């Protein structure tokens, strides 16, 4: 189990680091799908099958495709950026490294190193659906409302207003 964890962790970190470091934006999104799939495999390894499959469907299937569409719609042919990082990249890198070192210090001094999982619970999709329909029915309805509002809002924001005035 530990070897599988380290392989998946290396895959995830390599995919996400490539997604944030490559020059071509489409290559970045391709590397990102590798990172998202690695996170989904980690969910499966933790026994959360439903969340892992949801991760694959939502992130690998929808968010990455959406990002590719946005890149294709905003890409100008013949334009290659001389620099992929912004002018303040040193400050950003230092802040990110500082955040990671503080988090790693806090985690390593928290005593979670010898915390091992209890025996694996049986989480069926039936149980998840049951509690979504009973305990969490109000949050579920709110999520439906939020998704509807967000998708209509995204269409309204991205709509070309000049078409209306013609």
């Amino acid at each position, binding site marked *: 189990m530990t070897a599988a964890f380290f392989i998946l962790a290396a895959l995830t970190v390599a995919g996400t680091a490539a997604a944030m470091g490559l020059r071509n934006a489409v290559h970045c999104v391709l590397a990102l799908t590798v990172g998202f799939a690695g996170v989904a495999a980690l969910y499966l390894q933790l026994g959360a099958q439903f969340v892992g499959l949801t991760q694959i469907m939502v992130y690998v299937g929808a968010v990455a495709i959406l990002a590719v569409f946005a890149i294709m719609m905003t890409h100008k042919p013949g334009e290659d950026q001389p620099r992929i990082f*912004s002018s303040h990249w040193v400050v950003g890198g230092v802040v990110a490294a500082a955040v990671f070192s503080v988090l790693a210090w806090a985690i390593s001094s*928290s005593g979670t190193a010898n915390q091992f999982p209890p025996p694996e619970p049986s989480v069926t999709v039936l149980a998840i659906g049951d509690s979504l329909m009973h305990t969490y029915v109000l949050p579920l309805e709110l999520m439906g409302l939020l998704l509807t509002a967000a998708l209509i*809002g995204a269409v309204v924001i991205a709509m070309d207003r000049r078409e209306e005035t013609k």
Partner: protein
Amino acid sequence: MTSLQNYLILSSLLFSIGLAGALTRRNAILVLIGIELMLNAANLNFIAFWRYGPNPSHLTGIMFAIFSITVAAAEAAVGLGIILAAYRHSRTTDLDQMNSLKG
């Protein structure tokens, strides 16, 4: 067996990679992707704490992760819509050139 600490270190590494990307990239779409990575790191923490918690037969961690994924999907849709609107206005997704709020 993998201990909880390994998952926490991995998710803080994912968070820092996303933060570094969001703070340093020039392309606005890749900045949004960095934010998605940070949300993913939080979801990994939810699932890890659920699995290593005292009673994982309660589905709270899974529910939180599912709702968090839903909010992240809505955020991605609205964020990309805003980037497309800003691109239509200023003809660029380069954040170094998008330096004025006023058109």
